[in-house]
Each structure stands twice: as structure tokens, then as C-alpha cells.
């Protein structure tokens, strides 16, 4: 009985320690070094591996999500004779919810896991210790550009996701289902507001990008430097950041759209 309580306490202490360590990592790498502190070239390189290489999966996923929204929305709206509102449905769903959230989930799987594995392997092969020996701060050299790359790429990827999705929805609605082109775009323009929908979606995606990269980088940095430990850290990254994104999404939605 006593040992059970001790175990519980140990879990609690470990979790709080991890949160503290992750916050220290974030503070030391992001606030004391701007995007260019480790050299602009490093940031570009990370933007390439984090952002550009996630582009194809994001674009393809966005197109299909948009097309499915178009089809599903049509079958529901046509019963009420209001299929002209399909453009509104597709665009608001993508801009407010699916764009940022699905992008963040794909981003966690595609870029987050890669970040964790990369940093974990650097630790396992003692590249990080070697940097410290040479007097190079591995936080600034390794972590900072990756954090900033994640923070910058996420909103861009989410925007591209929504854009491709809206055009995918337009393809299904206008070309396949025969909804009037003017009704699709006109109703969308009448109900989508730039500040209320587009900008709030961007705020969401920045928050998600920050959470996902932060968790990915910390998991890699704190991983046990063995092949098993790296595998575990990579899984943890995907699981924790997906849950964090979904939970944070509820909070952000309640704050920005909930009217509370």
C-alpha cells in the first residue's frame, strides 16, 4: 500500500521535473537566441527539413480532406436545399479547425518524430557532448534553429493545407456536384472574416507548431541515449504532442470562438 503511494508520488515528481526541464530548455534556447543567433544558414537548413519536406504530405492530405468535406457537407445540406452554403461550410471548417489541427497532427508525425530521432541520435553518438567540449552551446547550435523552424513552418503549412482544401472542396462541389461557382465562392466570402477566421486560425497553428516542436526537441534532448530509448522517445513525441494539440485546441477554441 505504502509503496503504491510512493510510486504515485514518484510519477508526479518525474512529470513535474520533466516539465521544469522542458521549460528551462525552451527558455535557454528560444528567448536567449533569436532565429538568427546560431547563424541564418542553420535556420534555412532546418526550415528545409522541417517545413519543405512536410509540404507534400500536407498538400495531399489537405486536398483530400477538402474533397471529403465537400462530399459529406453536400449530402447533408442538400436535404435542406441549402447546398449553396457548402463553400461556407468547407472554408470555415478548414480555417477554424481542420487546417490547424490536422496539419499539427501530421506535422507531429512527419517532422516531430524526425526531430526527436535526430537529436536523440546526436546524443547517443555523443555529438552533443563533443560540442560542449569544443565550447559550442548545443542548445543554441542544435535546439534553437529547430524550434524556430517549427514555429515558422507550422502556420505556413496550415495555411497551405486550408488553401488546398478549399480548392479541393471547390473541385468536388463545382465540377463534380454541379453547385454554382458563384454561390460557392460568394457565400464563402460573405461569411468568412479575415480577422475572425483566418487570423485566429493562424494563431492556433502558431501555438500548435510551438507545442509540437517543443515536445519533439525536449524528448530528443532528454532521451535515454540507446537505440531503445530513442525509439521510445520518438513514440512519446507523437503521442504526447498529438494529445497536447487536441487539448490545446479545445482551450483555444473556447477562448477565441466560444464566446465565453
Amino acid at each position, binding site marked *: 500500500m505504502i509503496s503504491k503511494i510512493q510510486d504515485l508520488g514518484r510519477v508526479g515528481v518525474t512529470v513535474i521535473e520533466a516539465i521544469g526541464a522542458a521549460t528551462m530548455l525552451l527558455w535557454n534556447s528560444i528567448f536567449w537566441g533569436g532565429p538568427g543567433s546560431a547563424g541564418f544558414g542553420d535556420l*534555412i537548413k532546418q526550415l528545409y527539413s522541417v517545413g*519543405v519536406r512536410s*509540404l507534400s504530405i500536407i498538400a495531399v492530405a489537405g486536398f483530400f480532406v477538402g474533397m471529403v468535406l465537400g462530399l459529406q457537407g453536400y449530402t447533408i445540406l442538400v436535404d435542406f436545399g*441549402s447546398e449553396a452554403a457548402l463553400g461556407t461550410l468547407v472554408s470555415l471548417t478548414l480555417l477554424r479547425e481542420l487546417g490547424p489541427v490536422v496539419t499539427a497532427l501530421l506535422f507531429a508525425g512527419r517532422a516531430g518524430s524526425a526531430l526527436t530521432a535526430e537529436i536523440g541520435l546526436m546524443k547517443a553518438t555523443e555529438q552533443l557532448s563533443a560540442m560542449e567540449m569544443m565550447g559550442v552551446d548545443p542548445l543554441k547550435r542544435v535546439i534553437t534553429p529547430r524550434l524556430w523552424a517549427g514555429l515558422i513552418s507550422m502556420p505556413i503549412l496550415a495555411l*497551405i493545407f486550408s488553401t488546398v482544401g478549399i480548392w479541393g472542396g471547390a473541385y468536388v462541389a463545382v465540377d463534380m456536384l454541379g453547385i454554382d461557382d458563384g454561390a460557392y*465562392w460568394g457565400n464563402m466570402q*460573405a461569411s468568412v472574416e479575415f480577422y475572425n477566421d*483566418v487570423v485566429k486560425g493562424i494563431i492556433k497553428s502558431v501555438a500548435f507548431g510551438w507545442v509540437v516542436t517543443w515536445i519533439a526537441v525536449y524528448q530528443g534532448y532528454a532521451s535515454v541515449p540507446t537505440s531503445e530509448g530513442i525509439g521510445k522517445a520518438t513514440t512519446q513525441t507523437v503521442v504526447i504532442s498529438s494529445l497536447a494539440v487536441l487539448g490545446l485546441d479545445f482551450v483555444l477554441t473556447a477562448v477565441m470562438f466560444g464566446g465565453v
Partner: protein
Amino acid sequence: MHKRTVEFTVGAFMVMGIVALVLMAFRVSGLSMSDTGDTYTLKAHFENLGGLNERAKVSMAGVTIGRVTKIYLDPEWYSAVVEMEINKSMSTLSKDTSAAILTAGLLGEKYIGLTVGAEEEHLKDGDWIEDTQSALVLEELIGRFLFNKAEEG
């Protein structure tokens, strides 16, 4: 991967992001620069708003000429007060312009329809529209209908 290629693709990535943002702004949300600024405010009392929202359209002859900016309850008259912004280009609304809460389609959103009157004088910033017509509330209509039927029978 060659260094030049990396830089080029990252640049292209950034440009795509900006293009997506511009498309969102102008094609999807219909943002236009001329909309902001040149408006004046009119106010009106309504008995019942029946689901009119802030940001609803204000239209005349089916053309949107403004937006509802603020809705609140007048504590003295217990009626709803609606403040709306009208484009400056429509500054020649007569003093006896009437406002009605209408519905787009059978179940669509509520909006305010203005009908111009015959007086010479124009409404100015902050003026009240005197002649207003409340929203048609379906429950009230059905209730009245049933009441009449019951009286007849």
C-alpha cells in the same frame, strides 16, 4: 542536397505561404481595402430582433450597404437598440427611411433591410431611424393563427 537548392526551396516555401495568406484574404474572406473607414453610424429601436447578430448585413434593394456593429437592450424602453455602420457613399438616406428585420430565404440568416422615404432631409451620423419593423417570429405567428382559429370554431 546542394546548398543553393536548399535555399531556393525554402524561399519557394515561404513564398507559397504568403501566396496562401493573400488567397485567404482576398479570395476566401473577401477582404477589401476600401471597406474600412468611410462609414457613419445609425441607430434604431426594435421590438424584437428574432436572432439578428452583430456583423449582420444592412442592405437596401438587396445591395449590402453596411453592417450591424452593436446590439444592446435599452434599459428605459426595454426594447433592442441596433447600431449599424453605413457606407459613406450612401449618405443621402432620407429622414423617414424605414428599417425592417428580414430573413434571407426561408430559414436563412437575419439582416436589416432599409427602405428609403420621401423627405428632403438626410440622416446624419448618430441619428435614429424612427420607422422600424421587428423580425417575424414564427412562434408568434403560429400562436396568433391558432388563437384566431379557436375563436372562429
